[in-house]
């Protein structure tokens, strides 16, 4: 299937240029898509961003602390319910989380099932190889995958329901310095400019290079691109600084804050805390 889709893949060689371009477009697409969802009118979108950040941190902490598969599954059900209430399309949400996980977790976890010492579930001898998953290994693997799944789902849901600007402002509530938040905000804005620049550079190369070039040449080109971006970064930061000082920037940062915690926000925060407490306490009891 992959051989037909991409003409460059037909000789078994998917180009690094295409890879990078796909990555860049994927990021931009994802960001646009995310902002779209963050502005729709669901339950989580209406919660104050500071309360929301607190809620998610508490629940992620609970998911990390609990040592029980049952609890992780329960937490995942709660997350799914929250996603539905926030009008995030469920199939997309489930897919985005679980399609990314096996690539990393699978490679790490599958060998562990066989190497962890303990009672064996069965012992299948294939010539010299003994296929014998151990029970503690299996439990550990399922628990790890479940916990990673819940944590990733929570992070994705937080981002999907919060515009970036609000997320940054909520960082103030947990005492992140203003300077850091301003750098984060501006960096996010310039990321898209740089992604655009980089994709232009890669497309220019893709459309002009017809021969198969050597690996050394390719790496030299990549490094040249990095050096070029470095040069542009210096120039751009000078321009940005000039523009900022022309508009009266003196180094001190002031923001206006229009958020007010309403009763519903406190209720949501309290609810998240309650769910987490139950999860952690019950997790001690259930194996």
């Amino acid at each position, binding site marked *: 299937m992959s051989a037909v889709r991409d003409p460059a893949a037909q000789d078994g060689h998917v180009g690094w240029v295409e890879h990078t371009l796909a990555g860049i477009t994927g*990021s931009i697409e994802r960001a646009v898509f995310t902002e779209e969802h963050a502005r729709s009118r669901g339950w989580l979108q209406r919660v104050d961003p500071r309360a929301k950040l607190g809620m998610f941190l508490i629940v*992620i902490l609970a998911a990390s602390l609990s040592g029980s598969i049952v609890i992780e599954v329960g937490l995942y059900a709660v997350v799914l319910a929250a996603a539905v209430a926030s009008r995030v399309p469920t199939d997309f949400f489930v897919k985005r989380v679980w399609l990314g996980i096996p690539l990393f977790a699978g490679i790490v976890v599958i060998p562990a099932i066989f190497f962890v010492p303990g009672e064996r579930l069965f012992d299948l001898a294939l010539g010299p190889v003994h296929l014998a998953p151990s029970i503690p290994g299996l439990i550990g693997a399922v628990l790890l995958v479940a916990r990673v799944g819940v944590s990733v789902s929570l*992070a994705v849901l937080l981002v999907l329901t919060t515009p970036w600007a609000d997320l940054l402002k909520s960082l103030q509530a947990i005492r992140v310095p203003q300077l*850091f938040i301003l750098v984060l905000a501006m960096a996010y804005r310039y990321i898209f400019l740089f992604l655009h620049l980089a994709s232009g550079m890669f497309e220019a190369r893709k459309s002009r290079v017809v021969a198969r070039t050597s690996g050394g040449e390719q790496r030299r080109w990549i490094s040249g*691109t990095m*050096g070029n971006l470095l040069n542009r970064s*210096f120039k751009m930061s000078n321009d940005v600084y000039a523009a900022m000082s022309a508009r009266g920037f003196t180094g001190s940062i002031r923001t206006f804050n229009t958020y007010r915690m309403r009763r519903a926000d406190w209720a949501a925060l309290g609810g998240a805390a309650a769910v987490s407490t139950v999860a952690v306490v019950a997790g001690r009891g259930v194996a």
Partner: protein
Amino acid sequence: MHIPDGYLSPIISLGMGVATVPTWAVATRRVQRVLTTRTVPLLAVFAAMSFTVMMFNVPVPGGTTAHAVGGTLIAIVLGPWAAVIAVSVALIIQALFFGDGGVLAIFANCLNMGIILPFVGYVAYRLLAGRSPVLSTRRVWAAGIAAYVAITVSALAVGTELGIQPMLFSENGHALYSPYGLAEAIPTMLAAHLFGASIVEALVTAFGVAYLQQRHPEYLTSLRGVVAGADVPEGETSRRPLWQTGGALVVGSIILLTIAGLVTGGGDIGKAFGADWSQVDWPSVATMLLVVAVIALILLPLAWFVLPRRMRGVGTAFVAAAIIAPLGLIAPGFAYGEGSTEDVQAAFGYIPQGLHDLSSVFSAPFAGYNLPLPFFSDANAALWQQAIGYEIAGFIGILLLGVAMYAITGLIRRAGGRASDAASPRPV
């Protein structure tokens, strides 16, 4: 390299904040003292650049691609403190917005890639570059080696963080977090980086510095000086002849090997590396070396011309490795990297469980890494006969590995392609 949530215990991942948060505070203060009001735009733009660079796929020798971090290059240009903030901000945006790396694991990821990496890279670069002129070739080498060391140390940190999890947090015999102990996590992380990502990082950084020397040398002098408060030696370009560099390398490695041999042999050069060299039958060794040399003369050019262009370099290197493999037969007793589990147990006092399970897989077809034919592995077969057996076994092993790798990469590519249709995740 990005650790997702769930692999580290929250106590560890939040505890890392004790190391990262003060570093950020110091870094901010130091950068602000030099840059004053320029801090915000410069750091923001460089964080954006760092993010973009992390998206680049760099072709690795052998046909696959890897991501570069670029932390050392930024540290060389901006100084380590500014690099800490630029790379950390890029990592935070990746975690919060693009789902690369966990939210609770932000501190751990920023410590590994945002603090350890630029600092190790910068210190190694300064040590290696010394007071050499800004445009010298030595600085290019220094940058490459520094980047290699930096990302390897950073991988070591990741391996350590993952490896201490099962020791600290286990319940009823099963690990609560990452399941591997130090004995598995560190070698895996190191091996994965030493021969892949580290090389990429080194090449990209070295070429990047070479590019800056050619096009924008001012970034390697004044601006870095401004940001890091460092003094930069000025000077003319000088070129050391290749034979001098090569000679220094050869002499250096001979000295290093002699010292290592003396230390391991307890000061007696006849017992270097813990082997009794007086038992070696030197005439038969000479015959073997001759046979190996003839094989090399035939096979190396053959491999070079037969292999397709894309894998020519790597393929020939593997063939060369297989050809020189039997040199380990010279040393009486323990041959490096070829020990059976009993040898390993004798040397290290324990057997990693994984090695024990795996060894039964490989020992079945080729007992003792030799072909099970009397001509090659008979008890009184001549050394050169054993050597040929070793080589054939080695080639078969490389072929099997190649086929397995090809199948696995094909599978991963297919799975990745299918996944990217739906959700376009980026490889970690």
